[in-house]
């Protein structure tokens, strides 16, 4: 019986660690995908590049145009876009290789990173939105 208490302790510590890790970052896959596919332009801190690449951190566009994010992520974007009062006009390439599930996770990471609080995107909504688009957002369809 000597080992029982220590092992119980160890188990609960382990559980606490795992639990707290998940609590710290519920958007792990989204974060990894963001780092791999988005951060080189929008930057790790979501601030973009002055005048050329719009920010995602504290961006009013994210609040007002949540319904477009899935299509933008998959097919990219062309033409002018106004973000936080500044106009941007460069081509954004899409990331066609991401599944609807992965896009949901990326959106949810972006919606909650850097102080953002733009709510949770649901997989069903993202999937439905993706069925409605097949070209960069902003292009004549």
């Amino acid at each position, binding site marked *: 019986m000597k080992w029982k208490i220590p092992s119980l302790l160890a188990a609960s510590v382990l559980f606490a660690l795992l639990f707290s890790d998940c609590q710290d970052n519920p958007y792990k896959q989204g974060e990894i995908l963001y780092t791999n596919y988005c951060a*080189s332009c929008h*930057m790790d801190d979501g601030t973009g590049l*002055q005048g050329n*690449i719009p920010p995602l951190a504290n961006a009013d566009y994210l609040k007002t145009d949540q319904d477009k994010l899935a299509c933008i992520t998959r097919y990219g974007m062309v033409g002018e876009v106004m973000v936080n009062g500044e106009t941007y006009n460069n081509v954004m390439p899409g990331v066609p290789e991401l599944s609807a599930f992965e896009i949901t996770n990326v959106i949810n990471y972006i919606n909650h990173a850097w102080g953002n609080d733009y709510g949770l995107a649901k997989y069903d909504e993202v999937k439905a939105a993706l069925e409605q688009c097949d070209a960069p957002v902003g292009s004549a369809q």
Partner: protein
Amino acid sequence: MRWIADTLIAFTLLIVGVAACDSDPEPLPVLNKRVEVEGQMQPQRIPEFTFINQDSQLVTRETFAGKAYVADFFFTSCPTICPIMTRNMLKIYRQFEEEERLLLLSHTIDPGRDSVGQLHRYAENIGVSSGKWHFVTGQKDSLYAIADDYFNVVVEDPTLPGGYDHSGRLVLIDTAGHIRAYCNGTNDEEVQQFIKDIQRLLHEMENSEPAGS
């Protein structure tokens, strides 16, 4: 008598401190390969070039006469390493905005798409002055050849996002056309060190003739 010892120690520390401040930092090395010129081994210089900047002005080696400059290679539609390189170039620009002895030079490696107009728009969007930061285009062959002289590798590869493979080095060139430092333009820590190297070179320019001239 304790105070005498204390004063002595404090005084010694002061002297050592002042001496350390006074002594010049080690000059940056000249990194170019040495080649034989008129029978003497000398470090290679950046060769003559003629490019055109975002204001349709010619940019040549003369543009940088008497100045140090930071050079890099990018293209405006680059979806991979360029935005972060440009952001770090912008950091250098801001830090040395009032420093007349330092200029910046960004070469496009995509002259097909990066016209003078496109470069103008890009520079204007970032909000930088064309007298300080030249975004240049030119003959593709000349751009690719000079990338090599600036320790950068540029290769067209249609299979990659954006269509080019290129190294993201920021390179520091002195008034003699020699490379004195470089860094990976996507690595914040290396860029911090590079900024210190720029300060060292400017300090050296204040105090002596450029090395190797």
